[in-house]
């Protein structure tokens, strides 16, 4: 079954999201849809799945014009999608979520045995480690993403749209996903694949459509004709810039955060490492390795049950996150910026100044709004947040600009220890380069950074040293020589040495 979009346009208040865009998707192909944030990819996908109606233009399914009123209509025609946003019901089991619209029943009651069995069929294709009976809320972000993909697969769709399916999963799972996508393609499924990771697109796509500012700049071009440079310049409208990250001198004696044989109630065992001023310490691992959980434990969100945590040489008892930020000057840039990082309904100013209100208040406890703007403006300017005004609601900013805001608040309060969790998930090339440079700069200025990332390339660009975590333990440390080949091999080697996993290269 093939799908075509003809001259589709869509306008939102103040923005022309799509301007006469066309897409031609054939059965049995993997079609990459590329573009920077705000280029219109997600809008296009929402039109195909019936979430949004186009203002003009046509959607053709096998040459027949269709009008999907809702995702349900689209599903019934064999069109299924994994959206960028999570669409799972947290308190339901993995199996129920996967089979939500067609739960198997027996005598009129849901047959939970069958639910688990059926769901497992799809999970096993991607990650056999996920229990179909587990509740979704107990999963990590990456595992949730895998459940989303399994859910889309389970509808046996003829047309599958994947919007950033690999944004928060590791290379290992990506490899499994790709193997599966190739098999589906060979079975005649038409697949639209959206990703910010160019390597992935080159690895898997047959043809490519590129959007820029809501317009087509490439329409179904064969992948063979595409080079990285041409693709990037198509997407951003000019050649790519490589992140310039200044060399840092880290004084090994200036340790600011040290873990000695730490174990936590989340299940970490014997975690030992030291983080120094001006250093970027990477923490790499597969999904479920326990990286974000360690960050939360350090921040006082889980209990430390053994070993010692030292901050600036003193044993530290961090009671809660409030304590971590005020008493120990630690900041946390969350992996999930919408849920944990930002207050979407509030202005940029408020989101950044939230960490410094107490400092800004005068003798009688009032904050002068002008002083507040003055305090915030330099960081917004420095981080190059694109916005008409500081009063803009954060919910209206693009993902990249949102991420800048969630970093800015920690710069404003001058945190000395910054835990940055997956800083560039779902963020476009231009902004990604910028954020990498920014993180480098922050470290140069003396802050200690613990960087958690599943993006190997990002890790190798930024980190001075890389800790490798597996199964809630540290299994190795790699001195980063900034060479992708050697460093990534060393990292995978450590994971391989302890695990039963077989990391296939993504591609």
């Amino acid at each position, binding site marked *: 079954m093939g799908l075509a979009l003809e001259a589709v346009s869509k306008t*939102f208040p103040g923005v022309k999201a799509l301007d006469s865009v066309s897409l031609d998707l054939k059965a049995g192909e993997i079609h990459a849809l590329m573009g920077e944030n705000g280029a219109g990819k997600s809008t296009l996908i929402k039109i195909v799945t019936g979430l949004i109606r186009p203002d003009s233009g046509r959607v053709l399914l096998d040459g027949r014009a269709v009008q999907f009123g809702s995702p349900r209509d689209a599903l019934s025609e064999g069109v299924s999608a994994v959206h960028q946003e999570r669409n799972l019901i947290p308190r339901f089991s993995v199996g129920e979520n996967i089979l939500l619209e067609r739960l198997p029943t027996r005598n009129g009651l849901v047959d939970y045995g069958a639910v688990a069995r059926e769901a497992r069929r799809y999970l096993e294709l991607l990650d056999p480690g996920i229990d179909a009976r587990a509740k979704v809320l107990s999963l990590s972000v990456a595992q949730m993403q895998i459940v989303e993909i399994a859910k889309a697969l389970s509808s046996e769709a003829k047309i599958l749209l994947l919007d950033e399916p690999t944004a928060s999963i590791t290379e290992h799972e990506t490899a499994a996903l790709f193997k599966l996508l190739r098999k589906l393609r060979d079975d005649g499924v038409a697949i639209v694949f959206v990703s910010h990771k160019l390597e992935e697109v080159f690895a898997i796509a047959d043809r490519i459509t590129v959007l820029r500012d809501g317009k087509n700049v490439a329409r179904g071009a064969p992948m063979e004709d595409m080079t990285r440079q041409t693709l990037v310049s198509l997407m951003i409208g000019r050649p790519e810039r490589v992140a310039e990250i200044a060399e840092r001198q880290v004084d090994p004696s200036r340790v600011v955060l040290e873990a000695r044989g730490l174990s936590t109630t989340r299940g970490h065992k014997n975690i030992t490492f030291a983080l120094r001023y001006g250093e970027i310490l990477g923490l790499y691992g597969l999904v479920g390795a326990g990286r974000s959980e360690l960050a939360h434990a350090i921040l006082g969100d889980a209990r430390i049950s053994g070993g010692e945590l030292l901050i600036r040489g003193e044993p530290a008892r961090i009671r*809660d996150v409030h304590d971590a*930020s005020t008493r120990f000057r630690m900041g946390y840039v969350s992996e999930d910026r919408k*849920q944990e990082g930002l*207050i979407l*309904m509030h202005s940029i100013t408020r989101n950044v100044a939230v960490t410094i209100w107490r400092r800004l*208040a005068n003798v009688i406890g009032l*904050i002068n709004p002008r002083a507040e703007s003055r305090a915030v403006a330099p960081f917004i300017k420095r981080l190059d947040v694109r916005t008409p005004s500081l009063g803009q609601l954060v919910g209206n900013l693009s993902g990249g600009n949102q991420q800048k805001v969630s970093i800015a608040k920690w710069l404003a309060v001058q945190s000395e220890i910054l835990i940055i969790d997956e800083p560039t998930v779902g963020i476009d090339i231009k902004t990604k380069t910028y954020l990498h440079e920014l993180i480098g700069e922050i470290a140069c200025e003396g802050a200690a950074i613990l960087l958690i990332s599943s993006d190997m390339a990002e890790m190798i660009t930024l980190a001075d040293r890389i800790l490798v975590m597996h199964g809630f333990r540290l299994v190795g440390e790699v001195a980063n020589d900034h060479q992708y080949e050697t460093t990534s091999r060393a990292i995978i080697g450590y994971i391989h040495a302890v695990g039963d996993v077989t990391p296939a290269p993504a591609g």
Partner: protein
Amino acid sequence: MTLFRRLLLVEWSGLAVAILLGALALSVIAPNFLTEFNLYVMLRSLSVGLLVAFAQMVTLGVGQMNIAVGALGGLTAIIFGATIELYGFPLLLAIPLALAIGALGGLINGLLTARTGVNAFIITLATASAFTGINFGITGSIPFYKMPASLVAFGDHHLGAMPYLLVAPLIVAFLLGLFFSRAAPGRELLAFGGNPQAAELSGISRERVVVSAHVLSGLLAAAAAVLAVAQLGSAQPTIGADWLLLSFAAPIIGGAALTGGHISVLGTLFAVLLLGLIQNGMVLAKVDPYWVQFVLGALILAAVGLNRWRAVNSGVA
């Protein structure tokens, strides 16, 4: 976007228009609407309602509810009455004591909510029952009638159409506006309401926010109770019994987000004014007072619809 649509996006614009039109219509239909006495009666009846609405608005700001506003108000009112009638407390002592009782009730609500992690709705539903129980246990449903003349006078006197009683909620409105727009703790309440996780990860203490919102709510409920006693001239155990609906209606009509993080002091004030106007209009037009209840319900639905429309159109939905 047309000027009209843009005006609709400003929260209290619709309310202001409705109030103007309503007042205009009433002055045409009912000749005695614009008399000094009628306006005084109407404004006087708003005074307590304003404080009640503010008491709920504060908890809505942090994304919670205080079902116990009325119960706490009733309890405060009769303790206030009892200290005066039975123990002869002067007002200068009895008023601060009443406010302290309200704050204490709020503290209990806040601590229970923050420490147990149980939804504030359930906690305050339970404490509401407890507060009411204490109230009727103490009084046996018998009001305290002997209130000091100065208090009753404060409840009665007026300057032109302006009742003295209204001064208290206006001062409170000003202070609340300042608190939520300019003071760090006020901002923190709204930040927490907007996204509790993000606020906590930004170093805002959850317990402090939740407790202070409930304490403030209790304090305002107590202030409303004192005004109610002044207005009625006696401390009735039934004070507060009919506050709940209004307490939600006014902030919501005024533009508060039920999910927390956004409130409007001015919007709430206008909403109370509009509701008062409707009530007054119905009295003047001799409509069955039970219909007021109906209109209130319809208005809440309309307001929620307008809020939703506004959220969709400003792109934050």
